[in-house]
């Protein structure tokens, strides 16, 4: 029980961080600092150049190295202490409600990029937090679509059996066989350009989810098949219950356990799918950040070998995925124990 609560709270806090991205992130994710491309993570100092200790951590401003214009040195002439609850760039807390309050920041011209900057000088930490919205959101939407269609068709197949079942299962085989990547390319190319890039992306994600209905459908069909034969269902039928009632009161609740565990496995899978889409150029458009778009830059050899802080979205990805898997396996375990 304790471990379940622990995992659940870790997952919840990760989602909360991403939800509160505007507040936690020190900068606007699309703000470019053209003088500081690929700047390394800022060092937080407690002891200054004269050896004096300060309780409040501070940073130095970064300037390009005069000898090697590819790297930066710290300008130790001025300290910039880290302030908390500062006023910064504007963001929307809720649609329509704006705020300028950020958790921490420093005065200009220094920048406290705790995870460095990308090729256009944008703060990686801010993009990581805001990008989580896109990526986790994509995972949730795709999972929802896959499960809705999968539940619908799987329940149908399992409940009515016979020819309906065979037809649905053949359809499922078909959907698992066709390479749907081309469909995504085609949909993207066919969409009008005037749609918001965010809307286009979410549409692609929904399509991705919908075509992935086959595997959940199979599992749900299996459950429904066995549930249909259970004694209480036969009894209810004997009492004259019709199909909708049976489905609603008896069959579907049986499937919920499987649906939940499937959801727990599908969400990280679709977050990963978003990364693949971005690698292939089908991701969300600039300048909106997403983890896939940020990892996409690692395909360039120069970025892969020189700027280790560009890997941080992978760490975030892994953390979220592990939490989901751990939660799922724990819930699965408890359900099994409860059933036996």
């Amino acid at each position, binding site marked *: 029980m304790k471990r379940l609560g622990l995992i659940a709270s870790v997952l919840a806090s990760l989602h909360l961080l991403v939800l509160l991205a505007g507040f936690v992130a020190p900068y606007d994710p699309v703000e470019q600092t053209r003088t500081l491309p690929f700047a390394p993570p800022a060092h937080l100092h407690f002891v200054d150049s004269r050896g004096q200790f300060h309780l409040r951590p501070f940073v130095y401003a970064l300037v390009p190295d005069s000898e090697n214009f590819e790297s930066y040195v710290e300008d130790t002439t001025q300290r910039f202490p880290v302030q908390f609850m500062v006023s910064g760039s504007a963001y929307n807390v809720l649609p329509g409600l704006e705020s300028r309050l950020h958790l921490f920041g420093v005065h200009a011209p220094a920048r406290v990029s705790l995870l460095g900057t990308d090729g256009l000088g944008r703060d990686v930490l801010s993009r990581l937090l805001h990008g989580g919205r896109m990526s986790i959101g994509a995972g949730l939407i795709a999972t929802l679509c896959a499960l809705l269609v999968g539940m619908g068709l799987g329940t149908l197949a399992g409940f009515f059996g016979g020819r309906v079942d065979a037809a649905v299962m*053949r359809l499922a085989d078909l959907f698992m*066989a*066709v390479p749907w990547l081309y469909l995504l390319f085609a949909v993207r190319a*066919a969409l009008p350009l005037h749609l918001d890039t965010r809307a286009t992306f979410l549409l692609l994600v929904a399509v991705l989810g919908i075509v992935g209905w086959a595997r959940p459908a199979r599992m749900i069909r299996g459950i429904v098949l066995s549930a249909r034969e259970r004694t209480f269902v036969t009894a209810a039928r004997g009492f004259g219950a019709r199909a909708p009632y049976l489905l609603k009161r008896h069959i579907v609740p049986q499937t919920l356990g499987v649906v939940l565990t499937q959801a727990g496995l599908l969400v990280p899978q679709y977050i990963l799918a978003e990364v693949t889409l971005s*690698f292939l150029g089908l991701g969300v458009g600039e300048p909106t950040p997403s983890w896939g778009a940020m990892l996409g830059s690692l*395909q360039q050899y120069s970025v892969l070998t020189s700027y280790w802080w560009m890997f941080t979205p992978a760490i975030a*990805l892994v953390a979220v995925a*592990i939490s989901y898997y751990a939660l799922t396996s724990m819930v699965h375990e408890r359900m099994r124990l409860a059933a036996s």
Partner: protein
Amino acid sequence: MTVVARRIASSIVMLFAVSVLSFGVLELAPGDFFIEMQIDAHVGSQTVEGLRTQYGLTQSPVVRYVQWLRSFVQGDLGFSLAHRAPVSTVIWTRAANTLLLTVPAMLVTWCLALPLGIWIARHRNRWVDRICGGVTSTLVALPDLLVALLLLLLALRTGLFPTGGMFSPDANELSVGSRLLDLGRHAFLPLCALIATTLPAVVRHVRASVIEAAEAPAVQAARAYGIARTRITSRYVLPLAANPLVSLAGLSIATLLSTSLLIEVVMSWPGLGPLLVEALLAKDVHVVLSASMLASALLVIGNLAADLALYAVDPRIRV
């Protein structure tokens, strides 16, 4: 036997449906193979139109599909516009190269995953289980592309392994033994990448099925009887756990040609992957169709083999 015959018939229908869908989806995307030439300032649009007519791209999609279907059932896989050669000359060597990678990877994966999964299941909920759970979760969560890129980086930094390709440039002058060694050195990293991306999921499945099978009443009864543990595992647990695992093995066979796609592209392994990606981007329709048909055929074979194996292994299904 009629069961098998019916399955084969429905598989053929499915392959046909796959071809129609693939073709339809390809047609949806605008542009064709020769449109790339239009952006070359030296080539006039009449030349491009002439080429289009010559290769039949101006005909309606239905006509083109029927033409392809007719030649396909006669064994002619079509003509590759990119290579200006029949598809069959291009696709079979590539498919063989891919299998050269995926078959050993699959064998190694299963030979490692089965004992590992059983062993972890036995030590369920102890620290061994937790660590392995964490490692497999991490590997499953990492995008395949990232794993491949990291391995490539490793090759570059250490210089121990070649950074791409299947043979060294002077491979023809080596003896047979050295050539095999050369092949091995080139295949090592792609194999590692492939195993790293498929092993964790299989281990997790083995573990889950074994745990579930171990809870069965028959196994509990056997334990109560005091039967030795190894005997329980081999005679009771494994046959029970076999059902989902056989399906998974069938899926492994079915995806033999598609799992290594990204890894082949990143590591310049001359398999089906780079061919398919380039054909897709270039809209080389016949190559894409042939590759999808090949992959779908393998899927059908894999599923059929799995179902047959299941029939043989699990007596409950025969009833």
